[in-house]
C-alpha cells in the first residue's frame, strides 16, 4: 500500500483542500490506530471529508486508488446481510452467484451491488 501524496491531491483539488486534509487525517489516524482493514462506502467518506459534492469526492477517491492508497471494489451483498463476493468492476460481477450466506444460488440484482473503498493500514501520510 502506498502513502498519500497530499500535496499532489491538494494541487489537483485546490478548492477541496480542507476536505483533502480531513481525508488524510482520517487515514493517518486509521494508520496509527493499529485497527484492522477499513472498508468504507462513498457515503461514509462523504461524512468524513465533507467535500463540496459527492461527485468531486468520487474523483478524489479515484485519485487515491491510482496512488495505491485505497482499493476500489464492487461488493455483492446478500439479502441476508454481508458480502458474498468482491469484484474489480460492475462488468466483472456474474449474473448468477452462490450466496454463501443463504446456501443457494441467486440472480444478482443491481441493488445488491455496493461500491466499497478498502484501506489497509501499512503506509504513511506524507
Amino acid at each position, binding site marked *: 500500500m502506498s502513502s498519500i501524496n497530499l500535496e499532489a491531491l491538494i494541487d489537483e483539488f485546490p478548492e477541496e483542500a480542507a476536505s483533502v486534509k480531513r481525508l488524510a487525517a482520517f487515514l493517518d489516524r*486509521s494508520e496509527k490506530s493499529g*485497527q*484492522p*482493514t*477499513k*472498508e*468504507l462506502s*462513498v*457515503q*461514509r467518506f*462523504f*461524512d468524513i471529508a465533507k467535500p*463540496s*459534492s*459527492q461527485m468531486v469526492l468520487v474523483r478524489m477517491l479515484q485519485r487515491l486508488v491510482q496512488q495505491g492508497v485505497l482499493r476500489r471494489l464492487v461488493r455483492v451483498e446478500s439479502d441476508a*446481510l*454481508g*458480502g458474498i463476493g468482491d469484484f474489480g468492476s460492475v462488468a466483472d460481477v456474474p449474473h448468477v452467484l452462490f450466496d454463501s450466506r443463504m446456501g443457494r444460488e441467486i440472480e444478482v*440484482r*443491481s*441493488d445488491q451491488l455496493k461500491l*466499497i473503498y478498502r484501506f489497509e493500514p501499512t503506509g504513511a501520510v506524507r
Partner: protein
Amino acid sequence: MADDLKYTKDIAALIQEATSLTVVSAFLKSKGLTSSAGTWNDMINKRLIPAVQDGHLTNEGLIGLLRSVEECGRQHVFLYFCSKARASELMDRKRVGQVAAKLGVADLLTAAKATSKPAQPELVDVRWDTAAVDLSLTIKAVEIREYQKYIGTRPYGNELHKIYSRVQERCVNLAKLHRNGLLEIRVAAHSNSTKYDADIRRFWHQIGAFLPSGDFKESSLSVAKDRLWGERAELSEKIRYTDSTIRNEAGNVLRGAAGGDKSDLVSDEAVSKSLDFLLEHDDAAYCEGANIWFKETVGLSTDVHVLLGGEVNEFALPASCTAEDYQYVLDQLRSLNRRVS
C-alpha cells in the same frame, strides 16, 4: 365564463390515475359541493365537469388537487443546499421567466400542463409558493418509465424461460427550492429497484437551466440517522422503529429488525442494547439506515412510513401521503439533522 372543459377532462383523468374517489369526494365536500360518486365516470361527468361549468369549481382548483395528490409520497427524496443569496437569485421571477422562454415553456408560468403520457420526459409545472415574498420555486416533470414485471415461466425444450411483461407507468419528479437554500429533489419511486443515481442525473439535466447542479451540495442526513436511534426513548411518542442498521468502518454490520411490521424494535430492550453496545464500544460505528414510522397520534392523517438509507442525502416515503404529512416528515428529519452538543 366557464373554464376550458378539455383541460378539465385532462386534469380529471390525471386525478383519477393518482388517487381514490374518497379523496376527491372529500375535496368536493370541503368546497360545499355535491360529493358522492360510485364510479370514476360519475365523479368526472356528474360532479367535476358540471361544477366547473357552473363556476363552482375552477381548473386552477383542480390543478391544486392534482398537485396535492401526485407530488407527495411514493418518492425517494434527495436533499441539497446552496447559499440563501444564490437561492434568491435562482428563484428570481425575471430570471426564471427568461430561462422558461429560452426552453419554450413560458406558458407553464401561467398554467400547469395536464400531460398524461409524454413521449419524452416533459416539464409540466413551474410555480412559486408565495406569501409576502416568494417562499419556494417548484419545477415538476412527467416521464413514462417502463419496468419489467415477472409473470411466470414457460417450458422450452430442456429450458425454462422466465417471462416478464413490460409495464409502463407515469412518473412525476419535482424539484422544490426554498428561499433558505434547501433544495428537495423528489423522484418517483421505482417499482422494482432501489437505485436512483441514473434518475437523479437525468432529472438534473432536465432542470439544469433553472437549477444548475454545480450550485448545490448534498445535505447529509447522517446526524438525523444517528439521533433517531440514539434518542429513540425521547422520540418513542412520535416514532416507531421497525429496523435499524449499525455499521462500523471495518465493514461489519449489525441490524436489529422487529418481528412484525406492526411491532416496535424499541420495545425489545435486549436487541436495542446490542445495537447500542456496538455504537458505544466502537468510535467508528454509525447508523447506516433505519426503517421508521411517524405515528398518526402526533396529528398525521395516518402512520407515515419512512426509509432512511441509500445515498447520504436520501430518504424515501414508500406510500402516497398528504402534503401536510410530507411536510411534517421533512421538518422532523431536518430538525433531527441538527447536531446537538
